Every structure is written in C-alpha cells, then in structure tokens.
C-alpha cells in the first residue's frame, strides 16, 4: 500500500503519508494534527476522517482507541456567511 495515495481527509487533502510524517515528528493528538495540517477542519468537520485519524493514532502509538482523545468541537458545524450573521444581528437590534 502506498500511503501517499490513501486519502484520510478529503476536505483538506491530507494523506496517510502526511499523518505518518507528523507522527514521526512526535505529534500524537488529533488536536495537534488539526492545527498543523488542517485535517478535519473542512466542510465535513471530521465526520468522515475523524474515526480514521483516531484509528491511525491508536495503531501508530500502540494505544487502545478508548485512550485516543477526540478533538474539540466548536460551533459552527457548517460554513456560515458573515453577511447572514450580520443580518441576524441587525434584525435583533431593531
């Protein structure tokens, strides 16, 4: 298997090889990987890649899945236009 041709995060084009490279450098949490490589930060917000990233961390570091911390989830779950937020705020002011 060529890890360069295995896509983990489709939204941000992160491959399995990218994860291996980061593991080599010592990154071992989803939170870190997210900050360094944007894995899980695209439109699907880790709903597709999340479990695979957890699994790869568990495998690489020899930990049970239960011990692999999941990443923080913050609003918003989808992209929201600033215009929409502004319009809502204007409506509330009236």
């Amino acid at each position, binding site marked *: 298997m060529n890890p360069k*041709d295995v896509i983990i995060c*489709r939204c941000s084009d992160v491959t*399995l090889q990218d994860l291996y490279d980061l593991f080599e450098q010592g990154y071992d949490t989803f939170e870190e990987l997210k900050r360094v490589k944007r894995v899980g930060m695209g439109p699907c917000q880790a*709903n597709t890649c999340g*479990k695979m990233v957890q699994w*790869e961390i568990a495998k690489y570091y020899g930990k049970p899945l239960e011990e692999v911390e999941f990443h923080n989830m913050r609003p*918003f779950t*989808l992209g929201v236009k600033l215009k929409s937020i502004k*319009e809502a705020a204007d409506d509330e002011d009236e």
Partner: protein
Amino acid sequence: MKQREVVIIGAGPGGLCAAQKLLEGGAKVCLIDRNASLGGQLIKQTHKFFGSEKQYASKRGIDIMEILISSLTQYGDQLEIMTETSVVGMYSDKVIACVKKDKFFKIQAQSIILATGASEKSIPFENNDLPGVYAAGAVQTLMNEYGVKPGDNVLMVGSGNIGLIVSYQLMQAGINVKALVEAAPSISGYLVHASKIRRLGVDILTNTSVKRAIGSEQVKQVEIWDLDPTWQGIEGSERILDVDTICISVGLAPLTELLQQLGAEVRYIKELGGNVPVIDKRYETTVKGVYACGDVVGIEEASSAMVEGKITGLNALEDLGYDIRASRLEMKALHEELKFLRDGPHAAKVRAGYLKRGMLT
C-alpha cells in the same frame, strides 16, 4: 431571539416519536431537520423491518415514515416544522444557532432533544478518493430516493445489515454485485439477510479487505486481499475484480458534535459506535434539560430509536412540568419493549455497550 418550549433536532424515527409524545402531552414542539422532508433515513428503507410488531415490524421503512409523519398533522400550531434548517451551533445555556437558506437565527429553548443520528464510517485504502467509491448510504440515496444507478458492477465492503441489505437492493435494481468482503472472520449482520444474497449467488468473503482501487479517472477494478488474524493483509493473496463501484459499509458513528459543543459529557464506547453521550435511564444528558435518543446515543435499529424517542419525549414532558402520571404504564411498557429489542444474539454488542454505560434495562 426566538423562544421555544421544546426543540427537537433531527426528524428521523427517534425525533418523530419524541415529537409525538410531547404533542400528545400538550407541549409546543419545534422540529428541526436539515433535509427538505421529514423521516430521516426511513425514506431510503424500501425493505420490510424486523423487530417487534409494536414498532411496525413487517412494514417497509418508507411506509413507517408516512405513519409517523401523518400522526403529527393533527396538532396544527402546536407543532412548528423547520426543514432545510441546519443547526450549526449549540451553547450550554440552550441557545441553538441555525441556518436556513443563508438566513441565520438563534433559538432559546427550554428543553432540547438531540436525535441527530449517525454518519457513515470510512476506511483507508489506496486510491480511496476515486469516483466510484461510495458510502452505502449514498448508494441508497441515489437508488432508492432518486432512482439513479450508481454503477453496473459493485464490490460491497462490510457485512453488517446495511451492507447486506444494500447488496440486495442493488440486485433488485439490476446491478451486478461481484462480491461482498468482510474484514472480520464472520458475517456481522442477520443471517436471514446474508442467506438472501448468498442464494442469489453473491460470494461473501470473510477475513478479506480492499487493498486498493484501480483506475485513473474512475474506479475500473479493485484489488482485494486476505487478512491475517491481526488484520494485516497477506502478501500474495491479492486478486483483482472488475468493478466500477466500491460501496463502503463499515459501520456508523453517532453524530455527537452538537452535544459536545454544548458541553454534554461524551465517552468512547466501542460497542455503541464510538463517542456517545453520557445519559441516564431517562435519556437525559449531563446537561439538564437536554436529552438524546436514537443512533446518536448508540448505533441500533430504527425500532429502538422509535422507542427511545417516546421515552425521551415523555421524560422531557415531565421535566417541563406536565403531568405524565397517566403515562406510567406506557413508560413501563416502553422500557420492556427496549429490553425485548435488545434481546437475542444479534443485540449482544448493544447489550455490552449498555453494560459499560451502567444502564442495562
């Protein structure tokens, strides 16, 4: 900000049944769903259900959906339905941020029921981004909802009930299912579904997985290989199948992101599909007045989601100050019903999960 008594997020079997109980009891319900129509995944379920008679066994999912939706029409203004509305954020003070067609608004809820369901899991293999690699749910949407053939020759990956049922539905649509591979040593879905596709000549290959998809613009072939007991591929066991579609059905993961945003405690329970909310016997999360039911609390069948929805609806009703004494027997029966649905060997995983949760009913 809009003020609402109860907001239900997700109008699948769980959410619809919760709504029904709340409306019966006199509460005002706001039902939100991101899709254009209610029913959640039921719309794709063209096969007849198992389970119990009370939860419409032997009826097709899509017909159950009609029954559930039509039971809500009598409530008029007591029920507000917001379709094509996505909940994009939730906060610990029970403020819900929503978007409907670029219109952003917030709702202050007294009670919230999360019935958000699950998303499909995926697996890593070479060229897994080629067009022609589908999740089983997407294939069901294409075929059963829109009448579109996903391809002509399919490899199914995963022998859970969804993998087995979708294989059968593909064949009903005149599509050739080349084989079904399962990484585990045995079939994980019901034998009755597996037998059906075996009788139609589909090989079910256990201890087998996908090594890579082959093709440049789209899937042309797939290479599969045997797995050893440690789930590693065995060199030399590779063989190639001519397929244009690889359908991935390797399980579901509860959609807990909104619960996590709002600060509800979540823990990893493998048997229930991964991260699931911590709930008590009343299906209340660790945030008071916030409840969860259906696949989001643990991957099960639609029948369990319906029962959980009713239990959740009654509990939310009680916490809002409604008198539910008349429903005590019904509540008892609902818990019995759940116990019945979780009985038997096919539900061993779910029972193990609920044992970990400390609430084996």
